């Protein structure tokens, strides 16, 4: 799938992606010449078809995680299937409120989510992960349901 700006005869490039959490996806593309933007909106079925391949439209925002597809897509996983991981990533701390919110994430996928947020904080020099940081990371990284 490619998007062509007809006026400029230029291929439009990926700009940003949004995952509102209802299974749909919005991917914004823009013309590098005239700056015209367009949004590609996919329904839950189209979104799943792409994510089921283990790929992300516009490229990955975080490195792929071990058993990512299994852990993010299986609904009947054992809460205790994976060993818990420490709350610290390097020197990053989790606030009490953030840790509490993390407990709301199903155990099957919690370790993976924790790691992604931890790495997000480390890369940006954030010392403490708070619920606000989690929201920002979710938005920046396009983490549906995390």
């Amino acid at each position: 799938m490619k998007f062509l700006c007809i006026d400029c005869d230029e291929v439009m490039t990926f700009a940003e992606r949004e995952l509102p959490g209802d299974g749909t996806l919005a991917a914004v593309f823009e013309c590098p010449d005239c700056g015209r933007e367009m949004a590609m909106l996919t329904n839950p079925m189209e979104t799943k078809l792409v994510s089921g391949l283990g790929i992300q439209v516009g490229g990955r925002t975080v490195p792929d995680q071990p058993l990512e597809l299994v852990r993010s897509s299986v609904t009947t996983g054992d809460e205790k299937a994976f060993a818990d991981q420490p709350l610290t990533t390097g020197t990053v701390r989790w606030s009490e409120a953030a840790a509490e919110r993390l407990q709301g994430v199903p155990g099957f996928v919690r370790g993976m989510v924790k790691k992604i947020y931890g790495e997000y904080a480390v890369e940006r020099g954030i010392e403490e992960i708070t619920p606000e940081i989690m929201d920002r990371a979710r938005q920046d990284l396009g983490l549906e349901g995390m």
Partner: protein
Amino acid sequence: MTERTRKIRTYHQVADPSSEDIVGQIEAQRSKLADRLADIDRLVVVASGKGGVGKSAITANLAALLAERGRRVGAIDADLHGPSLAAMLGADRTPLVVSEHGVEPAVGAAGVRLMSMDLVLSDGAPLEWRQPDVAGFVYQSTLDTGAVRELLADVVWGRLDLLLIDAPPGTDKLARLLELLPVIDTLLLITTPSEAARRAVGRAVQQARGAGISTIGLVANMTVHECPDCGRSEPMFEADGATQLATETGLELWAEVPFEPRFAVATDAGRPLVLEAPESPAALELDRLAARLENPTSETP
């Protein structure tokens, strides 16, 4: 009516970094899988066109036997919707450890390193995917294949002499597995003497040859039953479909495993028969098969 003069470049005429990135992601997946398998000397797929012929029991016993013989052995249960290998190998049930290198495999009988959906699913729960409310079947094979790819590529197998892959029944699933794997050293096709198995496994032979698999061994399971009282052997089936299949396809029967009730009992208990009763007829036949797997180009010992 005005003549249409606008000419839009075609898909292949347009270079697009975004779409190339998607191709790049697929290539990265394949590359990751190849890297992981590079540390494994021999990849053995245990399959059949037919269900219920004993693929998993034979896989579990072969894995344990090879490990007992000093080989470094891994086993993957690619039957996502009917996983049984972890139970048959008596795998430890401690939570799986995720490191920066991937997921550490569980350990089963004789030290076999293994991975199965059975280890990650809730007890007794079927594998269910998060999917849209309608037409879930559209995504199922994509998700299933992706999961098998992850079981192969995301598990820290380390250096292995052999990795055994217990394939799910059905030629469709075998086809996906063959497509996923960069190379297959040996394909074991398990059959029984039944006519139904002969037909189904015959299709799998064709499929495997079409996929370019050069080393294919037929294994006839549940061939005869030995009476525990008088010791007389009787065929389990009226037909001799396994021998017929070997003749029709020109493939060699690498093993003919007799039926033994204790085989099933030991397997259900997570204690492979080859370890529990190594002198039993089935275990001895599996021992010969294991030796053949260690050196698949040799004649039957």
